[in-house]
Structure formats: C-alpha cells, structure tokens
C-alpha cells in the first residue's frame, strides 16, 4: 500500500523488502508530554479500528496540571475482541528522555523501542529490545517547517505506525482530513505532510519491522456502522437518548466533560444544563428540574458526591427521581484526581444519613456507558428514585469503537406528565409506587401535595408517628427490592461451576474476562461473573456462588480493616458465604490481566497456574522470536 499523496522519494515509501509477519495483537505505549497530542494518535487508531475489522482498546493518563507534565497513551490493537489495554507494551514510543526512563520498564522482552533521537539517549547495547532511532522532531520540522517542533510529531508517529503495522492508509488519511477539516487548509496539508513523512521514513532503518494483523476469523459483524467515543461522551449521549433534557453540575475532574457536552448539546434539544455555584446547588437544581416532572441529571467525582449526600437523602425521602453520575478517581479528598479507583462503592450505596436505599449501576466499558445511562433513566422514572451511575476515570477517558446504537428503536420521548390527577391522588401511597404530580398539574381534590424531607403520611403531611415512619421506611426499601426482583441474571462466562468464580464490576470487566481465559487455558475450571447492578444485587447470586469453591472479587480499592474490598464486603454481608475472597489494589491504575491471574493463584491451588505466572512472554514483535 502506498500513501495516497506521498511523492516518490528515494529510499522512501518503496514496498518493504520482506513480507509482513502476522500478529494477533499489539500494545503500543506512547510516552511524551500532555501537550504533544499523543492522545489524538490513540483517537485516530481507535476510529480506524471502528472502520475496519480490527478492535482497539485505549488507556490514558493525563497529569492534572494544565500544560507540561508527562502523559502516556496506551493503545492495544488487534484482531477480534480486545478487552483490556494490555499489561506490558510491545512497542514504546519515547518522545523525551524522561519518557524513556519512566517507561522502558514497561516494555516486554523482544519489544520495540522507537525513540526520538533528537531528545533521547537510550542505554547502549540493551539487547533486550529492538532499538529504533527516529529523528521524530527534526523529521517533523523537515516536513512541515519550524512549527513542527511543537505540533505535528504525533501525526508523524501515526504515519510511522501505519507503515510498521500495515494499516489502511487511505482510511487514515480520510480520518485526518475529517479531524482537521474544520480548520484551515494549511492545517490539513501540514498534517498530511507530517503523516507522509513518518510513513515514508526509510524502510531500511526500520530493521524489517513490518507486521500485519491476522485475518479476522469468525467475528460476526452486526452490519451496523461503528462509532468511536470515550466513556463520558457515551454517558452524555445515553442520557440524551433516554430523554433527559435537564441537568446541573459543577466542574471537577474527571466528571467535567459530561457537563461540557450536555451544556453544549442540550439547548439543541430544547433543554438546559445549569453550571451551579457548587455541588450542593447542582443536585438541588437538578432535583428542582425533576420536581417539575422532567428527570434531571447531576454528577461529580468522589469529593463532589460527598457534598451532594444530604440532598441525596432528601431525594430518597421525598422519592424524587434523579440521575447522579459519579466518575470515580483516587481518593480520599483530592487524592489522585487523574487516576482510577473504585473506592466510592460504599459511598454510593450507603453515603448520606439515615436509611436511604437507592440504586447504583456501573458500566463495564464505553458502549455499556451508553446503555447503563439509558437503564438508569428507566429505573429512576419507574421507581421514582435517585440512581447513581458509578463509572471511573479509566472508562471515562478511554476511547472505544462499538456498534452505533439503533436510535429509532430506543429513543425516549422527553416531557413532563402534567395531566390532571384524580381526587383521590396521594403523593406517597404506602402500598404503591410514588408517582408525583408536578406543579402545573391540576389535582382533582383541590388539595395540592407537598414534597418533603420530613417523614410524612400518604398525602405528604409531616408526621411524628412511629407507625408511619416504620411503614414508610419499609416502603422506600421494598420498592428497591421490587426492582431487584426484575433484574436480569448477571453476565456469566466461562465454566458454570468449578474451582473459582471471578467477580468484577465497572471497568474491570475486560481484564477480568481475559484473566479467566488465561486461567482456563491451564486447565482450571473457572467462571467470570460481572455485575452491572451494584445496588440492589440481581437475584440468584447465592446459588451461582455455591457452584464454585472460591468466589474471588477483583476491585481497585483498599482491602480495608477487615481484609476485603468494598464489593467483596457487600457480598460477604449479603450472602454470608465464607468462600468469598478479595483481590484489591490501590496503585491508581487499571488492573493488568496478570495481576488478576496472580490474585486468583493465591486462592486456587494449581501448579500449572503458578508455573504460568513465571513465564515472561516475549513480545510478538521480537525480531527473532
């Protein structure tokens, strides 16, 4: 393949001498500074994957400082389902010396180091890796002029990667034009010049690095086009599809991009998103919207959720529907605001005062962010309850491609029900689900209801009656139990019984799925159960757990005072099953597959599994495998 507009350059983009070697998947780690645009390389590759048969998983860390500071973007690309961002890198692209120093340890033996020879001096004679010196900076400057020192290196590298992995250059060029099309022609031209320069970098310098992904076999395409977006966007658009037209929020990383999208998008749909003075005002304004009969959304990250807790208690007491998104990050306090953690689970379920049962859902990947948002809205409306969507930093910033949702069949029509209520209308019937009469609706009795945070009777009048408090507390609990009974069985894969059941929630789904595949490969009977419904739990878990010797819960939080992560603790409390064990970690990073496998090996006796842990897998990119 030839770049569509590459001039013939001597020693340039001539056809590679050797035939490409076939690989299943590759992990590329790009390490630079946050302003180098390395995220956009990932974006291009993810969108490319969306338009071809390859699958892509990305993983990003960004510093919380505005500019400067090291940043990495990891892309795993391959054939078939790619479920995690990969453990160790097969290729490291190092833009600076600090990038090299910090990340060379993540490169697998046999892997490829591509470094900017203008900035990086690698350890000489390091034969563990294939070292390729590329003048990234001067090559870009040569292609696009002086501006290339700061801008365009990412596109140059994209060209080089396209060459090495035999990517579809025509499609990439289209993507580049689409991406920069809104800017001036110069920008598009410079981008293409940088791309072509990277692509045309002399072949003989690449030391025969030339690969092609295995042909896709047995992958059933839905026939639907793929769309490529990050998890926060998927939540925002899921809410739009679910008919949410009102919201309020306050900026906090990594939640902010959801409110930015909604602030921009909602007016097009006739809606409104209010940026409030603080987190408490945000949830209050959102509840005000919901009170007018239009389900509203607020959201935040850990510390902001804490600030919303009193109002969340009111929402439970007043039985007001509401969507609260919490994008988890490292805590407590400001903690590690740009890192991932799953340590808000108990806060989401039990935060706030009093007995305040509510619904908590957690999406497993970007696509699931969209559908979880839709389900959350359905539940909030049907049960007149606050619903928390517990997502995390990793899935919020990750870019994935998935089947475009079939919008005509799923779009929910927005709007408040202001129809007249009958004379016997009660806002808080003891034996039925609450259906509020929003202001603007005529109540037949002429007696208008009060929504309230005080304990109340069926008509909303305050009460000090012990009998009523007992009845109403039970009512608020039982409606969540009523929801639980309707939930589908959670996703279970692998063996339906055996040595071990791995339980995951949130963004651990992918590495969990891969870990169980690896465990089963050495002959252990094991299954993987993933929970989207965190509170209430779906029915049937006790029976499922009973079919395995060990139930091992993997989550990114601390083992706490009693040796169990937050979900493990909940499951042990709910099912009193001593077989429930816990794998936890608090390094601010997503689970590696090997970390989960190694965690499982501590609870499952198997020499084969132990032996498999010791094997250091050589990179498939190794020149002499």
């Amino acid at each position: 393949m030839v770049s569509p507009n590459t001039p013939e350059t001597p020693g340039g983009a001539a056809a590679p001498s050797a035939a490409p070697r076939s690989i299943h998947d590759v992990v590329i780690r790009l390490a630079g500074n946050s302003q180098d645009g390395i995220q956009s390389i990932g974006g291009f590759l993810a969108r490319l994957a969306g338009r071809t048969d390859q699958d892509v998983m990305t993983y990003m860390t960004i510093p919380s400082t505005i500019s400067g500071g090291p940043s990495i973007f990891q892309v795993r690309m391959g054939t078939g389902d790619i479920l995690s961002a990969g453990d160790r890198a097969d290729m490291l692209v190092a833009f600076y010396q600090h990038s090299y120093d910090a990340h060379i340890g993540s490169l697998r033996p046999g892997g490829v180091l591509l470094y900017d020879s203008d900035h990086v001096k690698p350890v000489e004679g390091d034969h563990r890796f294939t070292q390729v010196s590329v003048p990234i900076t001067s090559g870009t400057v040569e292609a696009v002029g002086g501006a290339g020192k700061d801008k365009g290196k990412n596109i140059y590298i994209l060209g080089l990667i396209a060459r090495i992995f035999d990517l579809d250059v025509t499609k990439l060029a289209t993507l580049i034009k689409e991406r920069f099309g809104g800017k001036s022609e110069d920008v598009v031209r410079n981008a293409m010049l940088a791309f072509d320069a990277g692509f045309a970098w002399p072949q003989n310098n690449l030391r025969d690095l030339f690969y092609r992904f295995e042909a896709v076999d047995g992958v059933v395409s839905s026939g639907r086009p793929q769309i490529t977006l990050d998890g926060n966007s998927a939540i925002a658009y899921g809410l739009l599809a679910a008919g949410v037209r009102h919201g309020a929020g306050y900026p906090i990383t990594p939640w902010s991009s959801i409110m930015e999208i909604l602030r921009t998008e909602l007016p097009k749909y006739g809606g409104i998103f209010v940026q409030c003075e603080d987190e408490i005002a945000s949830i209050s304004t959102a509840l005000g919207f919901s009170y007018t009969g239009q389900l509203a959304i607020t959201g935040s990250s850990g510390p902001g959720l804490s600030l919303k807790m009193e109002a969340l208690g009111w929402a439970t007491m007043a039985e007001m529907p509401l969507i609260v998104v919490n994008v988890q990050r490292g805590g407590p306090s400001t903690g590690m605001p740009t890192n991932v953690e799953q340590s808000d689970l108990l806060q989401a379920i039990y935060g706030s005062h009093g007995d305040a049962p509510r619904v908590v859902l957690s999406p497993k990947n970007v696509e699931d962010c969209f559908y979880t948002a839709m389900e959350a809205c359905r539940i909030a409306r049907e049960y007149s309850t606050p619903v928390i969507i517990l997502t995390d930093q990793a899935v919020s910033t990750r870019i994935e491609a998935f089947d475009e949702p079939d919008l005509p069949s799923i779009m929910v029509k927005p709007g408040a029900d202001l129809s007249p209520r009958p004379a016997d209308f009660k806002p808080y019937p003891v034996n039925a689900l609450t259906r509020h009469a929003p202001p603007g609706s005529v109540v037949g009795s002429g007696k208008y209801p009060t929504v309230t945070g005080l304990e109340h009777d069926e008509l909303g009048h305050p009460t000090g009656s012990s009998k009523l408090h007992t009845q109403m507390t039970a009512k608020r609990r039982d409606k969540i139990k009523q929801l639980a009974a309707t939930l589908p069985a959670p996703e279970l894969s692998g063996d339906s019984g055996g040595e071990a059941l791995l339980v995951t929630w949130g963004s651990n789904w992918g590495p969990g799925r891969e870990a169980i595949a690896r465990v089963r490969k050495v002959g252990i009977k094991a299954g993987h159960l993933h929970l989207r419904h965190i509170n209430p739990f779906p029915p049937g878990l006790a029976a499922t757990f009973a079919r395995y010797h060990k139930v091992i819960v993997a989550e990114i939080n601390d083992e706490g005072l009693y040796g169990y992560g937050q979900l493990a603790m909940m499951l042990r409390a709910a099912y009193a099953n001593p077989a429930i064990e816990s794998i936890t970690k608090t390094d601010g990073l997503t689970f590696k597959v090997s970390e989960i496998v190694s965690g499982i090996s501590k609870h499952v006796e198997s020499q084969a599994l132990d032996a498999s842990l010791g094997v250091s897998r050589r990179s498939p990119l190794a020149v002499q495998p």
Partner: protein
Amino acid sequence: MSTALATPPPAPGAPLTKKILTADHPTWCPGCGDFAVLASFYRVLEKLQYPHEKIVTFAGIGCSSRFPYFVNTHGGHYIHGRALPFAAGISLGNEDLHVFVFGGDGDGFSIGGNHLVHTARKNVNLTYVIMDNSVYGLTKKQTSPTSPIGFKTKTDPTGAIDQPINPMRTLLNTGATFVARSHATQVNHMVEMMTRAAKHQGFSVVEILSECVEFYAGAFDSSIPRKGGTWTLIQEKKNDGTPEDAARHDVTDEVAAFKLAGQAWPGSFGVFYESNARKTKNVLEAELVAKARERTKNATDLQLLQSTFSKMR
C-alpha cells in the same frame, strides 16, 4: 390529613380565596410574626389570581420554612439553606409556574448565603421572602447571622460578639433585581411589597422583620409606632417634576439604595432597588435554545443524535 378529602373541591376556575389556599394549621408559637406574613401571602394570591395549579411555594429548614405546609398549593420542604437552587430548577424547568420561596435569616444568610448570591446573580425568575427574626428559633435560641452584637443566646451566653449581616446591603450586593424590606406588623405594606415582588421579572427578594415572641421578644419594637418606635417608609420618586420629588428615592439608583441600607437601625421600609435592565436567566437560556434550534434548523431529537453519531463513525 383525612379531613383534606372531606372538604369538597373548589369548582374549576373558581377564584382563589383564603379558604381555598388554607392548608395545615401553622405550627408556629402564638404571637409569632410569621402568622401575619402567611395572612398577607394569602391576600397576595387572592389579588394576583394565578391559576391554582401553577403556584409553587417552596422552603428550606427553619420555623418560617414550614410555610409551604400551610399554603394549599404545589410545594415542598427541602433541606436547610438550599431552597433557592431547588427553586431555580423549578423556575427554569417550567416557565409557566409562579415560584415563591420562604425562609428565615439562618437559612438565607448563613447556611444558604452562597446560594442567595448566585441565584440573585443569575437573576432567576422567582420571588424570595426572608422572614428575619434575628435568632435561630426552631433549635431554641442560638445566635443567627442577623443577631445584633450583645444579644444573649445559648451559643453566646454573654452576648453575641460577631458583626451581624446587614441584610439590605447583602441583598443589593448580590445583584438581586428587586430588593424590598417590610415588617410583619404592617400587613398592607407586606401585601404591597410581595405583590410587586411577584410581578417583577427576575429575582425578587423581600426581607420581612418578623418577631420571634419566644426567643427574641421585642426585637423589632423600634420600628413599631404603637410601641414607641418609628415606621419610616421609603418615598419613591414619582417623576412629577415637583420640587419635593427631587428628595424622593429613585429605585433604579443602586448608590441611593446602598445609602438607604446604611441608615442607622431601624432604617427605612419599602422598595430599595428595582431594575428591569438585566435579562432573567430564564430569558437568556431560552435565547440559547432558540439560537441552537435555528442553527440546527429545528431538527428532531432523533435527527440531532443521529447526525452526532454519524460524525463519530
């Protein structure tokens, strides 16, 4: 509770009367100033004759915040200090509603102080009535943000030492577009102030001195003539060209309003400031929607989302 259904519903479209608007019997102590505020509010609604179902009364926490239970309209009782952002959601969520928020000095100036500033700054279309008794009554006599220095409470047994808030100055500072002050012993004046506030387009606020007979008796006697006080009404400019008009207060003059707010206690009563120069947030948001709808050529929701997704392919 069960008596609620015993009374026959009013005929549809029947004029709103005090009888229709009366709900639960107030829980206030006998002699509380808030009774007069409630009676005045019934008269305001009788005067304005809004459609019954489109009136909303909302409140936070405190003695005065029990208000919504005593008014038979749609309404609610929210958490301490946060009724304003909730009410902003109501106002922005349904343009057809008439939103009234009631609260006390602790709710408005202390725990809810930040919300007061920002709801006013945004000029959200609603009416806020602060019943100021200069003491925390529901929790039985602690110092409030408007308690004067020297006032003895359970949290300041030797007398309050912190500088109290000057409500009028604070309210003018927030950027509220209608600021008035009244007194619970002056029913006609309260009715006039609340009526004007309700008719105002934007964030209107009326502070009403309302005595707590239980924990701060006599707090506002200095402005009650029959108790030897002085009741000074603000004389508003009539623009009639007479020489005496020059001395009257121009309600659109912010500096003059600040001067009134700086008067020695007990100061003056009436409208300090009123301006229609600023658009309400309700209007500004509607303009955003209109512009966006024009840009997207009134595409349907489905078309909009589909076109967004097609750009992500």
